[in-house]
């Protein structure tokens, strides 16, 4: 079989059939369609779960050379961080496979190690978000002003003290939130919805091929 057939046509036909069956479930109430659509959705979940293992392979591929060469870039002791990443990944895979994720040992490792570190990283990211927001809300262009002035009014409107100190903020906030914001949001949802439908149709019918193997097509 040619490579084009294997890598493009067969996946394309499989996706057309699967997508049609799953889409039909939304429009036709029929036990056989529900059964096949449910089965295909489950297969999709299984495929995604198997691919998740690729994340582990990828981490090992990325970090192993750093450990082997005792790398100190981009930070001093990088090799140590890489080694600890791999050790913890392997540890969790082993505990998860032997003890199940609901076991007390797994939960102990998760609650004592992962949760605090994840919380710390989220906190650091929140700092970046804060400084980022400051950078975004500097008025440098006309678009920047269009973003900042309503944001400032909404910000004041949302603070209890804002409408108390500046009573005119009440109706302005209602107009900005309810009338302008609401209608803009709905129009954006319609536009995005149409875009989503059409890129899905293009993908299902094999028209959108930017991400596909094109040689010999």
């Amino acid at each position, binding site marked *: 079989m040619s490579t084009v057939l294997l890598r493009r046509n067969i996946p394309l036909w499989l996706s057309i059939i699967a997508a049609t069956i799953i889409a039909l479930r939304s429009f036709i109430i029929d036990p056989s369609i529900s059964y096949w659509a449910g089965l295909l959705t489950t297969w999709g979940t299984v495929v*995604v779960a198997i691919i998740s*293992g690729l994340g582990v392979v*990828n981490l090992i591929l990325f970090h192993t050379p750093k450990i082997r060469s005792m790398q100190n870039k981009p*930070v001093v002791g990088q090799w140590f961080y890489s080694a600890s990443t791999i050790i913890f990944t392997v540890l969790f895979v082993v505990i998860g496979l032997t003890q199940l994720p609901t076991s007390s040992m797994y939960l102990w490792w998760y609650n004592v190690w992962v949760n605090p570190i994840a919380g710390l990283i989220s906190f650091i990211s929140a700092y970046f978000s804060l400084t*980022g927001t400051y950078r975004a809300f500097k008025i440098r262009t006309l678009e*920047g002003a269009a973003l900042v002035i309503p944001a400032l009014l909404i910000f004041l409107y949302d603070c209890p003290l804002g409408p108390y100190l500046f009573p005119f903020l009440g109706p302005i906030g209602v107009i900005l939130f309810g009338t302008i914001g609401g209608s803009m949001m709905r129009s*954006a949802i319609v536009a995005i919805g149409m875009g989503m439908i*059409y*890129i899905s149709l293009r993908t299902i019918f094999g028209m959108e091929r930017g991400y596909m*193997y094109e040689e010999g097509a």
Partner: protein
Amino acid sequence: MVIQNLFALILVVTSIAVLWYNYWWASKGHKFFIRKLPALDAISEALSRCAELGVPAYFPMSGGPVEQAQSGPSHLAALSIMGYATKPASEMGVKILVGTVQPPLIAMSDDVLTEGYRINGAPELHKLEDVMYYPGQMQIVAGSDSLFKQYKMASTFMLGSWWADTPAMCEVVKRHDSFLIGGTEYIENVSYLVAFSDYALVFEEIYAAGAYISDDEKLKSSIFSEDIIKMIVIALTIVGAIAVSAGMRDFLKWIAM
């Protein structure tokens, strides 16, 4: 067998019919016009900046799962742009690094880059390790900061589905003075990407990217089809608003059939 959501079914069937009619029209030689999208014209500019500085470009992909209804299509749109970007990247000898929080995107982006570089004659520019996996939204921010320190990526493409990590990620990109092309369909974060990016795609523009970059009339015809259906939806919205205001509430029942 019982039919439900009849109105939505009619809309989907009409969309498919309009899509195929315009596809046929394009295959007969009809030309379609798409207005200029500066963000997509700037892809070459972004990659040439990387070539001049001798550093890679960065394509982080965060947001929702690939199999989700909202984030899936925008991930596909981003992968399309990535695929098209491999052509100028191969010509200029620029590596594209990818960071993602979604394991399926490792396989997908690796495939896009491997094939893209190979077809354009530069297979040596990509290997699986160039796709970095991060286990969460905030972890990609911290990890990307590290990557920027090491590889000094001169251009970043923040395209696709972007969630709560958007402002933090934008800040990391700008702290490292990277040229940023951004675009997301996620309404809450569009404003951040517009404010931070050197060039931005807003709302559904990201879905039109494949058609715009490929310059393929058949693909462009699908954007025209989308606009036709959009006009129908706008007309229905206006008719509905008038009908309901005039007390004809049966319109709502008909549309929700």
